[in-house]
């Protein structure tokens, strides 16, 4: 019963909600215009380099956590 309920919750979460996505898209654009973002002020190349560094760190952590 519990497994069935969890499964239903999972399906509900995965269902697209474009209205909600649109609302939060607008909020995100507004927040971006206010600055205070970790990569603000960087050039495109600098930002890509920083994102690649994040990717490597997260990947190494995921690999290390594997049984």
């Amino acid at each position, binding site marked *: 019963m519990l497994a069935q309920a969890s499964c239903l919750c999972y399906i509900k979460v995965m269902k697209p909600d474009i209205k909600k996505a649109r609302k939060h898209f607008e909020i995100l654009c507004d927040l*971006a215009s206010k600055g205070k*973002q*970790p990569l603000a*002020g960087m050039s495109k190349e600098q930002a890509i380099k920083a994102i690649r560094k994040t*990717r*490597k760190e997260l990947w190494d952590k995921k690999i290390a956590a594997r049984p």
Partner: protein
Amino acid sequence: MLLVLDSNEYIFAFGASIDPTPRSLLKRILDEYPLHSIRLPRLITDEVRRNLSPESNRNFMTFVTGLAEIDEDFVVPFDLGAKYEAFGFKEADAFISAYAEWVGADALVTENRHFLRRTDNLPFLVVTAEECLRLMNLPRG
């Protein structure tokens, strides 16, 4: 089109306003849904969250769960990742490529040159946000 957007696209759209095109692409996907859809692995959401402010972070998760389907990283077959490593991709990039193949994506959208210079013989297109918008303008059929 089924698209996999790399983390740099979301970060450029909502984090550091470095390039306006990724935001235009996401707006277009929203406006034309379900004509175009997005899937992404957990790794990409983690990367985006690390590079957004805490407030943007919360909104990003609500945005992305409303628009896209998120898959856990472990669902991607290991052999598929190994195939892309053999192509010369770094481990995590190999995983993203394997994921794009596994979901049957039409295109992987990225601003990352490490992907963009290895586009031969892949089962999906590797394009920038600008190129993706151009593809969306092409007549379908």
